[in-house]
């Protein structure tokens, strides 16, 4: 019984890893950046939690669903995994949504066909969306050969 919540969190986290791997959303896109974002994110929310606990705003509930292992005063082990899940979900979701919107945009503009036709179906959508998604980073057009 005591392991139930932790187990649920681990199952959800496994799902996040699977989605990340399948669609190259976060760690599978850039492992170093993802590691930093995840660690900083979890530490940020742990600080938030600890501040709230210290101020007496919230506290660990009395329940049989948790292991009872504490990583700090009133801070259950499960919270670390919960915050990891929150951060992982946020980044997976954000990347997925950003990609979907970037792919949807050129279709409504009607310019997905012409330029990319010779490069195959997959890259045609990619090239037109490339102008949108990489527009913030590089101001030049999506020409792979011009990469530094």
């Amino acid at each position: 019984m005591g392991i139930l919540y932790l187990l649920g969190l681990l199952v959800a986290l496994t799902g996040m890893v699977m989605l990340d791997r399948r669609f190259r959303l976060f760690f599978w896109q850039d492992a170093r950046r993802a590691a930093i974002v995840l660690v900083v994110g979890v530490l940020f929310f742990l600080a938030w939690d600890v501040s709230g606990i210290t101020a007496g705003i919230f506290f660990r509930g009395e329940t049989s669903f948790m292991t009872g292992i504490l990583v700090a005063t009133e801070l259950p082990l499960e919270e670390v995994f919960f915050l990891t899940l929150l951060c992982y979900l946020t980044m997976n979701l954000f990347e997925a949504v950003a990609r979907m919107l970037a792919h949807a945009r050129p279709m409504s503009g009607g310019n997905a066909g012409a330029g990319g036709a010779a490069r195959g179906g997959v890259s045609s959508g990619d090239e037109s969306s490339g102008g949108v998604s990489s527009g913030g980073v590089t101001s030049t057009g999506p020409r792979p050969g011009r990469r530094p």
Partner: protein
Amino acid sequence: MTYWTLNALFLAVAVVLAIGARVARRSPRLLPLAVTVLVLFVVSAVFDNVMIAIGLVGYNRDLISGAFLGIAPLEDFAYVFGAVLLLPALWYLLPARTTSRTPAAREERR
């Protein structure tokens, strides 16, 4: 210190980073951020209510505003906004992996 005061402090940090990323990198884009917040808000509303219902967490009634979404204090949702402001901003502020700049890797990344 009330729950809202605590949230304001941490949200301020997240907002500064988000503005920093928008200014320095012109990313992340606002529409995907808005959609992400919306989805996370719904997911947390469900999850948070379950967590509180089964007694995983308790609140000091004197320090929360008393505004609830179901049985979840409205303040809890500041975590969602904190996550969406902070994490993608951090992602864009960090330099991208240089080895992924080959054309093949760029195609793959999408």
